[in-house]
C-alpha cells in the first residue's frame, strides 16, 4: 500500500460520506479554492444532534512534505465508520477500543476532520520536490526563483502573525517576511491564503468546536499551547494581547516574557496530551513526549495557537483548546513504517476523544475575559 495521492484523499472523503457511511458522515465543502483551483473537503462524523454536543476538530496536511498526516486521518475516518456501523471495536496494534467506546465517541461528539488542507503543496511534494513545505501561491511578479513560490501556512494564522512587532529582535524565531524564503514566508497578511481561510472557516461555522488538533511531522511530540513563550499561570495581564510586551516575546530565561495560560486550562491540556501519550505507547511501545509548543525556538502564526487565542481575543468566540502532534521520526517514513504510525496516532486521537467526553464541560470564556481585562 502506498501513500494516498491528492486525488485519492479527496476520493476517500467522498466514499466516507457515501451510503452506508452517510448515516453518520457528512461531506463539507470548504469555500475557498486553492491557488491551483482545487476544492477541499472536510468530513463531519456524528450521530445525533442537539445542543451541548462538543466539537473536536482534527486537521492535517498544512505542510506539504508531511505526507502521512492525510493518511492518518483517512485511516481514522475509515476505522471509526466501519466500527460504528458494524457495532465493532477498533484494534490498533496492542491497543483496543471497545464497540461501546466507539459508539460513545460518535454518539456524543461532533468530529470535524479536515485531512488535506494544502493539496497543491502535497501534489508538488509528491511529484516534484519532496521537501516542499509551503503552499503554491504564485511567486511575486518578476521573481523567477522557485523558492519565491508559496507561503508557510503554519505561519499565516492571525496570532502574533506580524512577528517583528511582537517579538524580541534577539528571539530565535523561525519566520520570514521574505517572499523568497524557501520554507517560512509568513505571507502578505494574516489569513492571506485560501488554505488558512478554510481552516478558520470551519472554526467560525461550528462554534461548538472546543478542541483542535493539528497533525504535523516530525519529532514524536504531543504538544499544547503556547508557542511564543514559556507558559505561566499566575499573571493574566502578561498575554499576547498586551502591547506593553510588544518587542519582548520569544526569549527563554528567568526574566523573559511568559504567556498566560489559565491553570485549569493547563491541567486539561496536559491531561489530554498525557492520555494520547499512553495511547501511542500502548500500540507498540513508542514513547512520545508531552510538552508545550515553545521549547527553545518560538513560533508565531500557527494554527493551534490561533485556535487557542480566539476566545482570548474575542470573548464572544468559543473557547478552544489547541494541540499539535508531531508524529514519527522523519517527514516521509517508508510506508510500511507509516502504517505503524497511523495506528499510533489513530489510537491517540481516539483516546483524546474519550478524554474529551470524560473532561468537564469546556470553561466559558471567563479566563479569556480575565486576561483581556487585565490589560485594558
Amino acid at each position, binding site marked *: 500500500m502506498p501513500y494516498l495521492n491528492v486525488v485519492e484523499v479527496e476520493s476517500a472523503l467522498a466514499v466516507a460520506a457515501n451510503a452506508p457511511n452517510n448515516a453518520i458522515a457528512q461531506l463539507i465543502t470548504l469555500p475557498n479554492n486553492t491557488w491551483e483551483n482545487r476544492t477541499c473537503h472536510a468530513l463531519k462524523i456524528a450521530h445525533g444532534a442537539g445542543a451541548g454536543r462538543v466539537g473536536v476538530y482534527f486537521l492535517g496536511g498544512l505542510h506539504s512534505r508531511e505526507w502521512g498526516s492525510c493518511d492518518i486521518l483517512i485511516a481514522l475516518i475509515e476505522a471509526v465508520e466501519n466500527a460504528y456501523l458494524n457495532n465493532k471495536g477498533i484494534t490498533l496494534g496492542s491497543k483496543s477500543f471497545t464497540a461501546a467506546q466507539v459508539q460513545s465517541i460518535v454518539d456524543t461528539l461532533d468530529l470535524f476532520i479536515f485531512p488535506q488542507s494544502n493539496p497543491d503543496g502535497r501534489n508538488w511534494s509528491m511529484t516534484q520536490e519532496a521537501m516542499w513545505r509551503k503552499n503554491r501561491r504564485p511567486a511575486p511578479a518578476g521573481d523567477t526563483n522557485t523558492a519565491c513560490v508559496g507561503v508557510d501556512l503554519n505561519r499565516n494564522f492571525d496570532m502574533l502573525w506580524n512577528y517583528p512587532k511582537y517579538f524580541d529582535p534577539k528571539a530565535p524565531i523561525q519566520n520570514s517576511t521574505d517572499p523568497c524564503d524557501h520554507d517560512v514566508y509568513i505571507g502578505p497578511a494574516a489569513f492571506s491564503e485560501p488554505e488558512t481561510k478554510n481552516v478558520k472557516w470551519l472554526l467560525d461555522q461550528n462554534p461548538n468546536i472546543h478542541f483542535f488538533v493539528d497533525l504535523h511531522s516530525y519529532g514524536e511530540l504531543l504538544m499544547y499551547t503556547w508557542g511564543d513563550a514559556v507558559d505561566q499561570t499566575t499573571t493574566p495581564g502578561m498575554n499576547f494581547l498586551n502591547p506593553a510586551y510588544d518587542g519582548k516575546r520569544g526569549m527563554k530565561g528567568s526574566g523573559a516574557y511568559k504567556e498566560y495560560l489559565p491553570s485549569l486550562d493547563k491541567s486539561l491540556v496536559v491531561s489530554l496530551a498525557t492520555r494520547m501519550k499512553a495511547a501511542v505507547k500502548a500500540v507498540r511501545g513508542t514513547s512520545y513526549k508531552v510538552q508545550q509548543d515553545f*521549547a527553545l525556538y518560538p513560533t508565531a502564526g500557527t494554527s493551534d495557537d490561533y485556535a487557542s487565542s480566539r476566545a482570548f481575543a474575542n470573548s464572544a468566540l468559543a473557547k478552544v483548546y489547541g494541540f499539535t502532534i508531531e508524529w514519527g521520526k522523519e517527514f516521509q517514513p517508508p510506508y510500511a513504517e507509516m502504517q505503524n504510525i497511523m495506528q499510533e496516532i489513530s489510537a491517540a486521537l481516539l483516546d483524546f476523544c474519550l478524554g474529551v467526553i470524560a473532561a468537564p464541560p469546556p470553561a466559558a470564556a471567563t479566563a479569556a475575559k480575565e486576561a483581556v481585562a487585565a490589560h485594558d
Partner: protein
Amino acid sequence: MASFHVTIAGQGYDAMADLVRAHHVHVLHKTVRDKGKQRYTVDAIVDDGAIRRLMAAGYEVTRNHDVDELGRERQKEVGQGDRYARR
C-alpha cells in the same frame, strides 16, 4: 546543489539560538533536544557550504542523508491513479 538532513549539536542556549539568528539555518525546530549539561541537538536541512560554515563555527554536524535522493525514493511510494475510484 545537494541538500542534506543533518543533526547539529551545540553548547548552550545562545549557540542554538544563533543557528537561526546568526547562521540563518532552517532548523527543524521541533527536533531540538536538551541532552543535559547545556548541550542541545537539533535537525536541519542544509547544503555542503552551510555544513562547512557551521563546523568552522564550532558546531558538531552529523550528516544523515541527501534529502533529494531520499525524496525521490519516497515518491515511488505514492499511489498512482485512484484506488477509491471503483467503490
